[in-house]
């Protein structure tokens, strides 16, 4: 078996929000085809990592490097990170009243095509694929012409995030608490969507508080975040252990 190729490499990363240093000397390597779960108590820096990767303007990198596909990610503006294949599933998806879901998604796909010097997507191909994937995510067709996340329930918003991910076909998906606020049916649909994306050429970072999503997704690696660092890594059994014992046995050490 050939050596696994690295997709994402974070080295000695410090990141702050405002004046507060949140991520402290973080190191993380993700290979193509891997799913990593990041768990940890509130305020441990999980969401800040998602922001740092996407290039959120509130998040300042004060030390260290991030390489994505061997590109220095920190030199890329937000839209280019996306167009290089980095997708962020938002913990709180944003509403854009009046802008229809399908117009928004098409604009995003065409932006990506343009970046890759490809032609615009054909309208018929786009609609066909969108309908098929919306069905898979249990999203009613009527939602596609409604405003982006406008008046959606919490579960609908999260399913819509996964629909966008499926349409944009990222190389790395960073899913920030996609499972929070989901009932068990939505949880199954969302995990089905995520699993359908997994393959040799794609990777994902799944940020979550709970083991229940991981039951369906089966991550390759589970990391425990505390105080902006990874304090323990293991396989799926670590998530089971955390579910039973909580975080205290780790954070008190």
């Amino acid at each position: 078996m050939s050596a696994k190729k690295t997709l994402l490499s974070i080295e000695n990363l410090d990141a702050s929000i405002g004046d507060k240093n949140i991520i402290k000397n973080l190191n993380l390597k993700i290979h193509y085809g891997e799913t990593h779960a990041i768990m940890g108590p509130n305020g441990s820096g999980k969401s800040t990592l998602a922001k740092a990767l996407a290039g959120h303007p509130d998040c300042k990198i004060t030390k260290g490097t991030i390489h994505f596909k061997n590109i220095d990610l920190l030199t890329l503006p937000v839209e280019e990170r996306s167009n290089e294949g980095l997708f962020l599933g938002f913990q709180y998806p944003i509403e854009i009243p009046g802008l229809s879901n399908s117009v928004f998604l098409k604009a995003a796909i065409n932006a990506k095509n343009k970046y890759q010097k490809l032609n615009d997507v054909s309208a018929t191909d786009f609609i066909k694929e969108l309908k098929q994937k919306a069905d898979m995510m249990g999203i009613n067709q009527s939602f596609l012409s409604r405003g982006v996340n406008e008046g959606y329930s919490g579960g609908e918003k999260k399913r819509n995030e996964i629909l966008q991910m499926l349409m944009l076909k990222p190389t790395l998906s960073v899913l920030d608490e996609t499972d929070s606020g989901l009932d068990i049916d939505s949880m199954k649909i969302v995990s089905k969507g995520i699993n359908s994306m997994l393959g040799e050429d794609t990777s994902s970072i799944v940020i979550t508080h709970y083991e229940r999503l991981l039951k369906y997704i089966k991550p390759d690696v589970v990391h425990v975040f505390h105080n902006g660092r990874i304090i323990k890594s293991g396989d799926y059994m670590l998530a089971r252990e955390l579910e039973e014992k909580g975080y205290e046995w780790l954070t008190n050490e």
Partner: protein
Amino acid sequence: MDPDNNQVSNPEIDNLIEKNYEYGFTTDIESETIAPGLNEDVIRLISKKKGEPQFLLDWRLKAFRHWSKLKEPAWGQLNIEKINYQDISYFSAPKLENAPKSLDEVDPKLLETYDKLGIPLHERAKLAGVAVDAVFDSVSVATTFKKKLLEAGVIFSSFSEAVKDHPELIKKYLGKVVPYRDNYFAALNAAVFTDGSFVYIPKGVRCPMELSTYFRINEANTGQFERTLIVADEGSHVSYLEGCTAPMRDENQLHAAVVELVALDDAEIKYSTVQNWYPGDEEGKGGIYNFVTKRGDCRGKNSKISWTQIETGSSVTWKYPSCLLRGDNSIGEFYSIALSNHHQQADTGTKMIHLGKNTKSKIISKGISAKKAQNTYRGLVTIAKNANHSRNYTQCDSLLIGDKCGAHTFPSIGVNNSSSILEHEATTSKISDDQLFYCIQRGINEEDAIGLIISGFCKEVLNELPMEFAVEARALLQVNLEGAVG
């Protein structure tokens, strides 16, 4: 946004910002322009140049005498430099050896000008479903598809031609919806108007194509005072669109137009405007003063008049397209997007005057302000004593970009009938950093993201535009917002 990220240059955006106002060129064409100044002799000269009948000259002179007694209105939420009406030339026409008899004889330079503006003056053009009347400074230079329209009985011509060919219609309808006594700028227009478009749709005819007029100011130190009159006879239907552009000049130029619409029983008029006069530069220098009186008379039963306007240009806009709902069951609609950037000021809205029974009106106003711009919605809804069971729905939404602009709303309501229902909704919002980040994370650059968010905000109005122009209007909104954020 993170300044470090934004400095990565994007040639696309740089290009777009460069061409901020792409219609700012001038056409080098010999014009006949009369000396600046306004008095009765100038009005007689204009009327003589146009070979007008006596009744029209008499009407102009009455209007001028009335105007001379008036003071400029000062109630608008506008900051305007004093206009010296004696410094303006009231007539300018491209010099033509002989009046062109057909489109083939129109000066190639003029054709080129309209080509540059994306307006086809040849009938095999890409907008083949649209008939165009092109008004250049004070005169109409060409009207397309006249023959085809005549076959359907539709009269579509320049105002001057209509005065010659159909004086009885002009006499019957001119000044009946907007009398010269209406207001300061309506009086000025009545005295000095030079051209415009005239449309008559006979009984029961559905106009077979979209009609449109493109207004272009070219000469310096001139004003444009056009007059449009559209009459839809019983059971007829017409959709009409006007567009406007002007060169970039450091001085302010005056545009004072009047539009009158008459809809008889069961007739429908849809009037759309894409107004893109030069808005002045980023410091607020130059630009068009746009003082326009537009009014539709739903004179007949079951008639309908619908105004849609996209106001992106002009340094100052003062404009309230209105409906007089006289016929029972008549319907008035007003859909508006007013965008003001930099130092632009827009004071716009509508009046819905319910006189007939079961009359309905709907007002959807979207105001967008960026940089130091001021945007005002001013509306009046009146329900008369006998207008039983009338209804009005008003929705005013304002969107602010940045923290130095302003949005103002002045809705007035007067109800004299207890069986009528009025609803009013108003919102003010901002484009949030969260919305922008969400779009940009999906790969869409900032300028496009703003364009998308704005088109979402304006959706209800954009949906009202004829298909051919909706795309153009979206693009125009985006171009006019360049540099608005950051």
